[in-house]
């Protein structure tokens, strides 16, 4: 049980147009979807992510009676995000009883979706390492075409070895 509490179930990478470019499972015995369903899942998530980004609640900048004057919030002037200076990022975590979904969007718009056990700690570290491996073994590969499905054997190998090594 302690070993399974730190597991990574699967990883999905979505390109900036919402297409699925990478999908792997790292746990035996998961019920897998058909390829088509994964494509639909990726596209749906891409849309949901865009919606969550645009519905990020905004707080009025003026401190006087914030609750009463909020209905006139259609004009963005005088409102700011909860964390000023940081642009709205959209959905970052989604947690259920069985798994936890972490979404990381790079500055170029690629999204990494990581399904982990809810008890798994340091998901940010895992995500950073995955991003690093992606930058190394996918983006430095002359045979990889941008925005196309990732078929890089060295990426599979290093990612698998690293994820297996840390559990």
């Amino acid at each position, binding site marked *: 049980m302690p070993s399974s509490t730190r597991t990574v179930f699967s990883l999905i990478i979505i390109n900036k147009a919402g297409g699925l470019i990478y999908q792997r499972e790292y746990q035996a015995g998961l019920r897998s979807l058909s390829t088509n369903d994964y494509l639909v899942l990726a596209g749906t998530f891409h849309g949901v992510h865009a919606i969550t980004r645009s519905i990020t609640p905004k707080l009025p900048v003026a401190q006087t009676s914030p609750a009463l004057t909020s209905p006139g919030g259609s004009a963005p002037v005088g409102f700011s995000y909860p964390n000023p200076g940081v642009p709205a990022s959209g959905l970052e975590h989604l947690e259920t009883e069985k798994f936890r979904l972490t979404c990381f969007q790079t500055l170029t718009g690629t999204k990494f979706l990581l399904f982990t056990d809810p008890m798994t700690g340091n998901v940010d570290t895992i995500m950073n390492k995955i991003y690093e491996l992606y930058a190394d073994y996918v983006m*430095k*590969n*002359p*045979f990889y075409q941008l925005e196309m499905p990732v078929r890089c054997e060295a*990426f599979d190998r290093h990612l698998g070895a690293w994820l297996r090594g840390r559990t």
Partner: protein
Amino acid sequence: MAAPPRHSAMLSVSNAVGTPQSGSSDKSQTAQPPSTPQPTQGLRVPSNRKTIYDRHLNRSRNAELSRASFAYLFAEMVTYAQRRVTGIQDLEKRLNEQGYPLGLRLLDLLFYRTTTTSSSALSSSSTSSSPPNRPLRILTLLHLIHGPLWRLLFGRSADALEHSVSPDTPNEYMITDNDPLVNTYISVPREMNQLNCAAFVAGIIEGVCDGCGFEAKVSAHNQPTEMWPSRTVFLLGFGESVMEREKVLERAGIK
């Protein structure tokens, strides 16, 4: 009495340190920095005015380069070579041709560095303890490639050096690299699995052999093992004239 030596000592110190002196001279001649004609000349001069040409050729200690920028550069070279090719063999030939002139030019630097550094550095790595010279025999050349050349390029020796076991091909030698630097980030697609981008390194080796007067054909081949998935064997095939000369030299007892 004591003044001249002190003066000379100061001179040598200021020569060795360089930067404080040049900084103070800049301040004294304030007219020079505002002129700054450097950007128009197209050559960027560092602030301490020491370009790569001012550096000693033998200074290789802190001359490390970024592995990532090399990876991007090499990826771009492969993409460029791939642009107008007809097949895998053609692509490897192009990579080989890109490496060949590099090998020819690298040879002089290699000889220069191995002769000016204490000769013990070479004799400890190669079998011959004679003063480092242009290799005359095949084995000396192979040791030069396996050791000093590999260290100059990749910072370590190659992993194996073998002679062909087949009696039909006595002119073939193999140099093995378990994890070639150029292939670190490259995953070749399955439909091109014959391709090995270390053909570029094979071109460098070919240039070195030709520069030494050993006509040779060098090719890179994949030989993955469980532990080393990108293990590469460089196959060196020497020409007929080289083999004949080799026999003559062996009879003459020249090493």
